[in-house]
């Protein structure tokens, strides 16, 4: 091997080694918000009677601007059988805020009438039901001995965007 080539090789190797630590720094741009979905108390069992609902902000920051974000709005539902469920309050279609209807035991969107099953969070009527992705993101709930309800993470993607029409 010629000396010149050797030097070139060394410079190249050194350059690669020098750049390597910067590659993971690309993560700076990728915002995975798992760290934002911290465990947070949202309500107590006694706050909400059976067959009723509560709109809550999660994760709550205390900043009005951030907390007014529709993507942070969730619906805590106490089904008639006493079971608790919490879904993202953002309709899968065009991002209106959905609401629970106690008389029909389902979740309805005021905008174009998408209707979701309150047990499973799956749309069965309206534009959202015609999409590929028709399940509302769900909040993982934990209830401790005092009856305090905690939110601890979200399953699914909020604000995925509608499909087709």
């Amino acid at each position, binding site marked *: 091997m010629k000396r010149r080539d050797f030097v070139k090789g060394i410079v190249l190797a050194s350059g690669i080694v020098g750049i390597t630590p910067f590659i993971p720094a690309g993560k700076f741009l990728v915002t995975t918000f798992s760290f934002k979905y911290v465990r947070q108390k949202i309500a107590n069992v006694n706050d909400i009677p059976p067959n009723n609902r509560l709109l809550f902000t999660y994760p709550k920051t205390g900043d009005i601007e951030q907390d007014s974000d529709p993507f942070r709005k969730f619906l805590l539902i106490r089904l008639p059988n006493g079971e608790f469920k919490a879904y993202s309050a953002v309709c899968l279609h065009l991002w209106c805020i959905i609401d629970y209807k106690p008389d029909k035991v389902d979740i309805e969107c*005021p*905008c*174009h*009438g998408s209707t979701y099953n309150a047990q499973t969070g799956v749309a069965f009527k*309206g*534009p959202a039901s015609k999409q590929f992705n028709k399940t509302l993101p769900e909040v993982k709930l934990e209830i401790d001995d005092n009856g305090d309800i905690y939110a601890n993470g979200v399953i699914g993607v909020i604000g995925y965007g509608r499909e087709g029409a």
Partner: protein
Amino acid sequence: MDRGMYISSHLLILFGIIGTWLSLYSNISDSFKELAGVSILLIVLGLMTLPVALLKNGPPNLKQLSPTAGVLIIGVILIGLPIFTGPPRVVESGRIINITLISTEWAFNQTNPTIQVELGDRVRITLINNGTITHSIEVVGLGPPSPKINPGENITIEFVATKEGTFDYICPIPGHAEFGMHGKFIVTSRTK
């Protein structure tokens, strides 16, 4: 005359005229009205490049001017004439019809009654929202929709029945008519 510019300025004007006509006068679809901004810009740009195209290498002859005249005449007919003629006038009959509709989910007055009026009648519809979500009222083809009103509020719209035929009255909020908030609105010819 400059051939390339001649072609493109005519194309610009033609696209603009079609767009403006679609947005202002066609009844094909409401949402075409959003085309207005860009169509008007196309016409203005086309009209401003036209003199350059025509005069560049000497004045055009009659044969070359005839497409220009054609395009301009199409424009005047499609866009200019409706401005002056306007919709056909209908003499008002002098009657005022008062109608009250109560909106709930998903019907007007529970049954969506058929409404019948005569040509030229002045119609006043009062909408009372007894539902749990926002509603509104529109007689499609006879007037613009009313503003959206919240539960418990009411609103009145007023228009003259200027066209004969069968129309739909609906809640124009997307999805609501689909779920049943629509009824028939019939305009018959005048009896006397």
